[in-house]
């Protein structure tokens, strides 16, 4: 199906369009913009707020033009006050609105962790369902060009460590639109993390609104030798790795998690039970990272199927350095995934 396909580059998508001229392509960035636009059009309870959402640049293009079209009450610039504004958005959500709070960088969310972890995440449980928190928080992972330690983090491990949150990380334009729409209509706080390196990625995106169900992973590629569990930008790397490994006769089953919390254990365990080998590729740090959560569940629940040590491809245990030389040494790519697969196959 065209929407499950990951197009690694524009030429690949162009080729697909040649075959099927009805295939509608959109970038990941525009998919987010389209979801937001349609939500603003169709749902009067929905609004967007955040620092610079009305900026001419429109948060790297993802909110471009919306303030002009929908006005500053529905697309609302805010002071730089992350904790306060998160609580304010949560308060609005408690009354039944569906706010979408936008952060240019996930790094700034450390400031609002109290409202996220001690409030939004706990409200439904603490009041035994008397209240709902239909709040979605978009946050972008930056990377490269010397962004350095405070503008490049992948903090999913922080969020997945807190019961009550949902954590979503789309890897394709189709998912970016469908998961964002589903997140907004979810009655729970959702942390929606985008990777800026994906913004230019193109793929099939239907025009009409649709949802992609939260909590369900998707198998991007079937294979019998090894399972690769990835999310966000690491899915692209995993697909690349999978293609090269095929040439070497290794068939990878590639799972795109889509939602990190709640985790789709069934899909992960099903695959590992089949392949017996697991590589986890995560954009975050390895030590204390989300990759450990996947690993731990598999070694608890599919231990007898495992034929080799679980491998994790994730960042080394240091903050992001600025110099491009150090950045190059820091970030992981398909090459690291290939190496990890090879360590446990053959």
């Amino acid at each position: 199906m065209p929407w499950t396909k990951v197009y690694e580059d524009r030429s690949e998508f162009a080729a697909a369009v040649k075959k099927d001229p009805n295939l509608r392509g959109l970038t990941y960035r525009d998919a987010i913009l389209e979801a937001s636009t349609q939500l603003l059009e169709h749902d009067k309870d929905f609004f967007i707020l955040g620092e610079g959402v009305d900026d001419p640049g429109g948060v790297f293009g993802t909110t471009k033009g919306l303030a002009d079209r929908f006005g500053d009450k529905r697309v609302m610039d805010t002071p730089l006050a992350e904790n306060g504004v998160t609580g304010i958005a949560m308060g609005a959500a408690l009354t039944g609105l569906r706010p979408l709070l936008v952060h240019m960088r996930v790094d700034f969310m450390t400031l609002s962790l109290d409202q996220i972890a001690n409030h939004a995440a706990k409200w439904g449980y603490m009041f035994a369902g008397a209240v709902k928190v239909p709040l979605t928080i978009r946050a972008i992972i930056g990377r490269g060009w010397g962004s350095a330690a405070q503008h490049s983090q992948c903090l999913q491990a922080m969020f997945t460590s807190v019961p009550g949150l949902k954590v979503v990380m789309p890897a394709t334009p189709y998912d970016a639109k469908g998961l964002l729409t589903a997140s907004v209509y979810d009655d729970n706080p959702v942390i929606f993390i985008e990777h800026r390196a994906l913004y230019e990625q193109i793929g099939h995106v239907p025009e009409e609104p649709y949802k992609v169900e939260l909590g369900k992973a998707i198998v991007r590629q079937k294979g019998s030798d090894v399972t690769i569990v990835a999310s966000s930008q690491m899915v692209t790397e995993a697909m690349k790795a999978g293609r090269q490994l095929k040439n070497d006769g290794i068939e990878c089953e590639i799972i795109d998690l889509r939602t990190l919390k709640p985790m789709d254990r069934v899909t992960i365990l099903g695959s590992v039970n089949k392949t017996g080998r697991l590589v986890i590729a995560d954009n975050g740090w390895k030590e204390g990272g989300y990759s450990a959560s996947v690993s731990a569940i598999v070694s608890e629940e599919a231990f007898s199927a495992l034929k080799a040590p679980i491998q994790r491809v994730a960042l080394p245990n240091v903050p992001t350095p600025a110099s491009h030389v150090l950045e190059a040494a820091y970030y992981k790519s398909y090459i690291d995934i290939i190496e990890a697969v090879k360590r446990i196959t053959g």
Partner: protein
Amino acid sequence: MELDKPQQIKLFTSMLRIRMLEEKVVELYPAQEMKCPVHLCIGQEAIAAGVCAHLNKDDYLTSNHRGHGHYLAKGGDMRALVAEFYGRSTGCSKGKGGSMHIVDTSAGMFGTSAIVGGGIPMGVGAGLSIDLRGEEKISVIFFGDGAFDEGVFYESYNFAALKKLPVIFICENNFYATNSHQSARHAGSRISNMALGFDSVGTSVDGNNVESVYYAAATAVERARSGHGPTLIEAITYRWKGHVGPGTDFEAGCRSEDELKRWMEKCPIKKYRAKLIEANTLDPDLVARITDSITSEVNDAVQFALKSPLPTADDLMTDLYSE
């Protein structure tokens, strides 16, 4: 808008109801059947009563760890409150919240936070919602002098003033955050002065005088309902009991007994009763009838709670997510 006699009696009753419920907690707590911390507001009742007298049921109210009085004054369900103290499944939070986490959406309360200052932005968010939907409601936020220390107060007040939201900030200044005196925490001498930096309006009022609170709130409500944005009301008061639990705390050296005694003389209920009796608005007979009626209500709530079932272990994993 002068207060008429029925309104005055209502204010008195509202205070007394809070006092009597809390005195009941003081009485019952040592039995160790309420297995959660309780933060009593005895001595501070005039603030909740005076402010909430202006509110409709669908106005929003945000409170904190010391929230029983706000809850009752706003029209929260007493049975559900007491049941929550007792950890029952009929509690307002079905036993999952405990005394610090109370809720009554039908009374405009969306749940209290025990993180100091944590509720403040929520109340502003409720005000934003009113504004976005073009409703007539207002949103009232109760918080302490301790919460005033927190940056989230500043961020929230700025937002409310910037967007001219229908929000009232009521800082219950009882001088202490736990046992830390205001003078050890605030550079400024007047909490209400902080409104100046926001080009907003602040006012300080005797929080033990229910009518003073009432009139200060009236102005703020008027401002809020007519689109002029928030008001910062500092209501100066004193808590009689320790920070947590039913005991006093001067024995522990947290404060002086003298200080407590001075403030007990300024008891908001005693003073107001005297005033209303003097004005022939109340008479001993009416006071007795009001007292009796509250006694029944309180006893009923306690009985209700004690007869209610506890949750079971099966309830542990429910309510994590709303479907």
